[in-house]
């Protein structure tokens, strides 16, 4: 009986589920997109200096240990000064911060692990540092960088669900409403949707990773 009710609720609210899924995807994709634009260059830059690399990775690790609900709370007074204390912006910022560690760490590791012989061959042939990055180091690092992006996306689909509490919308809204109203139908709808979204996103990124990996590097 219960199960049927839940299913019925889902069918009746397909439009709403779709709308909140789009909000959810929008927060995660914008934030992770920005995180790639910042994290990959940072990851590459810190390969130049071991001490700086250790410090940057340490800070990124600390950020990721802050509970998301606390992070949202911290941002309210700060972002209120520009009238954005709750809603879309703090959600995006939180996801952006949480994504830094997997993306920076994977980029750093991948670039550092490029065979030194390849680097020497590239230098010896007269490639500039920029050419070495574009033609050799980044293409070879792509699979590992993409693995970091996947980790960030899947993890932050979960974080974004909590952002419903600061009015960012998304599929978390079903869960928060379900808890507030002790409505199992909404609770299950939210939880199942978030899980399915995470699985689909992971498969999509796995496919993308395969497409972006240079043919000669695939195993």
């Amino acid at each position, binding site marked *: 009986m219960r199960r049927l009710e839940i299913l019925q609720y889902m069918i009746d609210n397909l439009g709403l589920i779709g709308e909140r899924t789009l909000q959810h995807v929008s927060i995660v994709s914008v934030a992770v997109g920005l995180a790639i634009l910042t994290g990959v260059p940072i990851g590459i830059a810190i390969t130049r200096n071991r001490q700086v690399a250790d410090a940057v990775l340490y800070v990124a690790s600390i950020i990721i240990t802050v509970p998301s609900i606390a992070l949202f709370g911290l941002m309210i007074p700060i972002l209120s000064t520009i009238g954005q204390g709750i809603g879309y912006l703090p959600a995006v910022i939180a996801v952006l911060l949480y994504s830094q560690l997997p993306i920076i760490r994977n980029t750093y590791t991948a670039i550092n692990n490029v*065979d030194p*012989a*390849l680097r*020497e*061959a*590239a*230098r*010896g*042939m*007269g*490639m*500039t540092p920029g*050419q070495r990055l574009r*033609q*050799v180091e980044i*293409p*070879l690092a792509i699979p590992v960088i993409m693995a970091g992006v996947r980790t960030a996306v899947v993890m932050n689909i979960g974080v974004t669900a909590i952002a419903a509490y600061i009015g960012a919308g998304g599929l978390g809204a079903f869960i928060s409403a379900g808890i507030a109203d002790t409505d199992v139908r909404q609770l299950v709808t939210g939880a199942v949707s978030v899980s399915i979204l995470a699985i689909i996103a992971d498969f999509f990124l796995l496919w993308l990773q395969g497409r972006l990996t*240079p*043919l*000669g*590097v695939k195993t």
Partner: protein
Amino acid sequence: MIKLEKLTKIFDTPGGTITAVDHVDMEVGEGEICVLLGPSGCGKTTNLKMINRLVVPTSGKIFIDGKDTDDYDPVELRRNIGYVIQQIGLFPNKTIEENICIVPDMLGWDRKKSRARAAELLELVALDPALFLTRFPKELSGGQQQRVGVIRALAADPPVMLMDEPFGAIDPINREVIQDEFLKMQQTLRKTIMFVSHDIDEAVKMADKVAIFRDGKLEQCSSPDDLLAHPANSFIADFVGGDRTLKRLRLVKVSEAMSKGAPSVTAESPVADAVKAMEDHGHANVVMVDERKRPRGFVHMNDVRDKKGPVSDHYEALEATVDAREDLRTAVSLMFSNDVTWLACTDADGKYAGYITQRGITHLLGETYNQ
């Protein structure tokens, strides 16, 4: 072509300063292969890498074709010097064609020209362009990869090549083959080559000039034969090995040690002719040739001195013959394996050209020591 003047490299390490290369003066002529040889840590690789500025010299000068390399931008300098390393360093994300075309592309060559060049170079090392251009490095064997590594360095036709133990990672059988291929290519290309090796046999085989390093200092720089015959000091004598005279066998061609103008007889010749030929020439054997002048057998003085009849009744078969274009190592090896003290030599057409004796070889090699 390449000239080093008081070239020095001092590394600052936490444990103090290390002089890797110490006031090295040397010169490599155009079209020469100069092998830098020495034990590991002797500075030979550092010396090489200073030429294309992968290592910046502490002091001293490097001139290529009379021009100071300090005056070039390092990137531009490297694009005009071929560079081959032991680990090969083909880029796994690029096809063979893209790998070969890297330097031509950076130099802004016309695409069609560089692609045609890639195909031409593959043919030069006996790899079918139709098959290999579109492959990725991982689909090639080690030997094939190293061939591509060498032609990649040749792609933009640089006058100077630097090779850091280029054949070091290849199994011994393939290494010989690739060395031979490379020497054959070099006969037409005439590049000026600096080549790092730790293998005396490789150095003797490849070099026009061998430079021996120890603790950053250039100990001796001379032709392989001179190095083996006259090592400048006991370190070099030890390094080239107690069997250094045997190594010289490889440097001398059979034709140089062969006694030319030796007589020959045919199967129909009377034995008396053979005896006269031996007496006139002063060798106790004479070779019997067939109608196409190929050596077929021989008669020995003691066997035929007082005999009658044609040579065909008294000759013995030849156990082995040697091509006069081979080196003495091959000849000596044949003598040992057939238990003979002399061999009949043939020319390119297989015709009898003369004979070579153990005494002749020892005499030839011994001559240089008396100079």
